[in-house]
């Protein structure tokens, strides 16, 4: 019996064997959404499975002139174009068509032409972009079927999805707990079996942390591996789109479709896209795995620590050579991140001014008044907090002390990794110091909330790829194990994570569903 935990290969095989159809898979997801999402509240927008929507997402829609703009961007680079049924022209690395006919969902900060894209913010309420993110266009061209848009912390700022302007999303493992964030909707939708996979975005851990909290796999690719075109910017030098799935193999399949150079993103790397499934051999004998003491500080819960240590022991048993590495500047990563990300955000979010799109405040006397009212009414508290920190860090007289200094420390953090990776092939750590916390537990304490990202943030600062895979339950809640790889070496990274996943036998994790919502105030 197929369901959304079956894995992408099984779904594809079911389609190939005629045991199911794309329409049936889509309907199955919609059924699960109808059954579960009143409690989980992962979806902000549902999309119907109509050919017009799919065509628009492929860049062939009725937005005449501009659709052409979106479509030929890819063709120019000699990129493979996929037929609408998902069959590939010349078998893209063996995984072509792997996603054809299979539903997926998107974090709501990834633009979809003709479909509302809000970043879970009041300031973008009702905003319908004319453009589609390159990653989505590639999924649509591969025959993927979009189910809808997922909840998140407003503009991806947060670690619990409580910062959504609409409503908080709940953790399918315990509806009283947060799913993590900012891609909380994406992690919860996949964990709850409402979508076989989803795309999220990761700026400081926003894919990996909710993946860990919800017991799914979350991959943050190397910076530049996946085009950021169409991803609403939070912190441009840190943001990266990536998949949330039920297995490492599925993450590799999705990455295969969305990776590659994009002429619309000047920071997308001109590197070859390897066959990401190539490394999923199940053999890691001789693989050198680094363990950094800095990731096991006092803040890490005993339960989490125990699970991660068991995982490391298992990896050693499987033939990996485990050794200690040192990442001495890790302790500065949080401060560095909380200067750089807000600084970039303060500039990226300045465009929301009520002039060309989005929310505009009523009754403004003049332009400055309109700007200030619009932004004050349109943004939530956390977004304002970060805009203020970032503006301060960049403002006259403070730039050198804060922003520039943070950029220099960033260099040191990157250097730490470069030196460590001279001796090891991957580094493992907990994804998060704790398991999912209760709703409302940390909303009034920004600094403690920020501590959640202590293990994931250094990776974004350095631009490296990393993946979180489930490594068991602690008191009934999923624990995440993070693997960090070298720049553009997702093949090794995925290979290591795959071996662990298979040997540990956790994936896919199926939550014991609380049967009904308990009426805790939403």
């Amino acid at each position, binding site marked *: 019996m197929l369901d959304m935990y079956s894995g992408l290969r099984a779904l594809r095989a079911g389609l190939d064997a005629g045991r199911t159809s794309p329409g049936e898979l889509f309907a199955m997801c919609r059924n699960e959404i109808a059954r579960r999402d009143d409690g989980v509240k992962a979806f902000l927008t549902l999309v119907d499975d109509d050919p017009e929507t799919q065509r628009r997402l492929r860049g062939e829609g009725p937005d005449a002139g501009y659709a052409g703009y979106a479509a030929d961007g890819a063709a120019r680079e000699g990129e493979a174009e996929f037929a609408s049924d998902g069959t590939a022209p010349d078998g893209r690395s063996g995984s072509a068509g792997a996603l054809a006919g299979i539903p997926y969902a998107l974090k709501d900060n990834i633009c979809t032409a003709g479909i509302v894209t809000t970043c879970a913010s009041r300031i973008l309420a009702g905003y319908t972009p004319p453009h589609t993110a390159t990653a989505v266009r590639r999924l649509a061209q591969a025959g993927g079927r979009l189910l809808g848009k997922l909840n998140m912390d407003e503009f991806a700022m947060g670690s619990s999805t409580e910062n959504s302007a609409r409503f908080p999303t709940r953790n399918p493992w315990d509806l009283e707990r947060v799913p993590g964030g900012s891609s909380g909707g994406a992690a919860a939708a996949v964990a709850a079996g409402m979508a076989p996979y989803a795309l999220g975005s990761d700026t400081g851990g926003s894919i990996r942390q909710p993946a860990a909290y919800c017991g799914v796999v979350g991959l943050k690719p190397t910076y530049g591996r996946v085009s950021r075109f169409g991803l609403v910017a939070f912190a441009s030098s840190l943001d990266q789109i990536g998949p949330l799935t039920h297995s490492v193999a599925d993450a590799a399949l999705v990455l295969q479709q969305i990776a590659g150079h994009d002429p619309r993103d000047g920071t997308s790397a001109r590197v070859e896209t390897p066959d990401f499934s190539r490394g999923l051999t199940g053999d890691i004998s001789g693989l050198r795995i680094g363990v950094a003491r800095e990731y096991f500080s006092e803040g890490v819960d005993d339960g989490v620590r125990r699970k991660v240590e068991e995982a490391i022991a298992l990896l050693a048993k499987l033939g990996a050579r485990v050794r200690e590495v040192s990442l001495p500047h890790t302790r500065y990563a949080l401060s560095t991140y909380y200067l750089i990300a807000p600084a970039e955000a303060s500039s990226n979010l300045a465009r929301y001014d009520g002039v060309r799109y989005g929310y505009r405040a009523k009754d403004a006397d003049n332009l400055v008044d309109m700007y200030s009212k619009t932004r004050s009414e349109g943004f939530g508290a956390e977004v304002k907090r970060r805009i203020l920190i970032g503006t301060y860090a960049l403002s006259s007289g403070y730039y050198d002390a804060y922003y520039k*200094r943070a950029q220099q420390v960033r260099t040191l953090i990157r250097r730490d990794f470069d030196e460590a990776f001279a001796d090891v092939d991957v580094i493992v750590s907990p994804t998060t110091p704790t398991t999912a916390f209760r709703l409302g537990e940390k909303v009034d304490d920004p600094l403690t909330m920020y501590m959640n990202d202590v293990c994931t943030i250094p990776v974004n600062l350095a631009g490296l790829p990393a993946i979180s895979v489930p490594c068991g339950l602690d008191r009934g809640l999923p624990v995440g194990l993070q693997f960090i790889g070298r720049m553009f070496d997702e093949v090794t990274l995925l290979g290591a994570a795959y071996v662990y996943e298979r040997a540990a036998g956790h994936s896919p994790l199926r939550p014991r569903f609380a049967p009904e919502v308990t009426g805790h105030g939403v």
Partner: protein
Amino acid sequence: MHLTEQDVAHVARLARLVLTDEEKHTLAGELDRILQHADELAGLDLAGVSPMSHVGGGETVTRPDEPRPSLAPLTALANAPDADEQQFRVPAVLEG
């Protein structure tokens, strides 16, 4: 260095945000704690360390100078809160 409510007000003005007195008070405290935390960077010896503003690099990225269609006029204004004569309408511009 402590962040005052006046600092918060100044930065809010730069960022085009209006804050209530209560917000100013709360935010001054919160931002001050975050920046106090950031002050740990002040102790590091960073002489000769170049700032990392980009992850990639080493190569100039350009595109060819080839025109493509712009948005259809209706699409360009489709999301505008207020428009007139194929233009975005804004309240009177007063310097300040």
